């Protein structure tokens, strides 16, 4: 499941609900992205995420589907905040449930790389030095490129 969230994202509550009543899952990996007080040495007071409700979820759903197709997982959740986010607050939460831990780790890692480089969201950092629109760093593209070996036939 994917969700674009205008209000606060609560990783604890999301993980608790995601783990609940599972008897066929041995491994749950979660990723929480938090807003830092400084980014590349510059202080940040507010992060603002622009999104395109409707289209953003549609692309997130495609990324979820390609994660499910590629790894042996039981369930996938991705929740992305948009709008204004304060320092220390969660920006994104991803969870993957699988029978075994290797698939859970790899799928969560893969999905985060996809969200970073493909999900239609645009991030602005505001601080005493002004406002700065963020684009993926070279390391984000390098991370995403790790997965470009051919996908297994379905």
């Amino acid at each position, binding site marked *: 499941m994917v969700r674009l969230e205008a209000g606060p994202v609560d990783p604890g509550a999301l993980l608790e609900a995601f783990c609940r009543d599972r008897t066929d899952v041995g491994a749950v990996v979660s990723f929480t*992205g938090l807003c830092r007080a400084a980014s590349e040495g510059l202080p940040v007071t507010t992060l603002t*995420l*622009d999104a*395109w409700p*409707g*289209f953003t979820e*549609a692309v997130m759903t495609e990324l979820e589907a390609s994660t499910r197709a590629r790894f042996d997982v039981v369930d996938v959740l991705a929740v*992305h905040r948009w709008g204004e986010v304060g320092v220390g607050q969660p*920006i*994104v939460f991803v969870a993957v449930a699988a029978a075994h831990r290797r698939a859970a780790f790899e799928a969560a890692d893969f999905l*985060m790389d996809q*969200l*970073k*480089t*493909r*999900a*239609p*969201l*645009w*991030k*602005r950092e505001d601080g005493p030095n002004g*406002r700065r*629109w*963020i*684009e*993926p760093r070279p390391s984000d593209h390098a991370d995403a490129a790790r997965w470009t070996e051919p996908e297994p036939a379905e």
Partner: protein
Amino acid sequence: MARVLLFGALADAAGWRDRDIEGDTIEALRLSLSGDERLAERLARPGLMTVLNQVVVRGDHPVGKDDEVAFAPPVSGG
């Protein structure tokens, strides 16, 4: 004529997010928007994302008044 949407730094630079613009191809719309000097430089940058009726497209395409064209900088989620 098509409905044009801007996102991220483009919307910020233009001061608007959603407007009807004259032009019968994506390239014509982009040229028309580039008349605004606040947008021209950003529309010329590599990695510009173009979305026609919620489908990411590359290259030029004809557009009509029922079409919706979005221009956006490279995404930065997560």
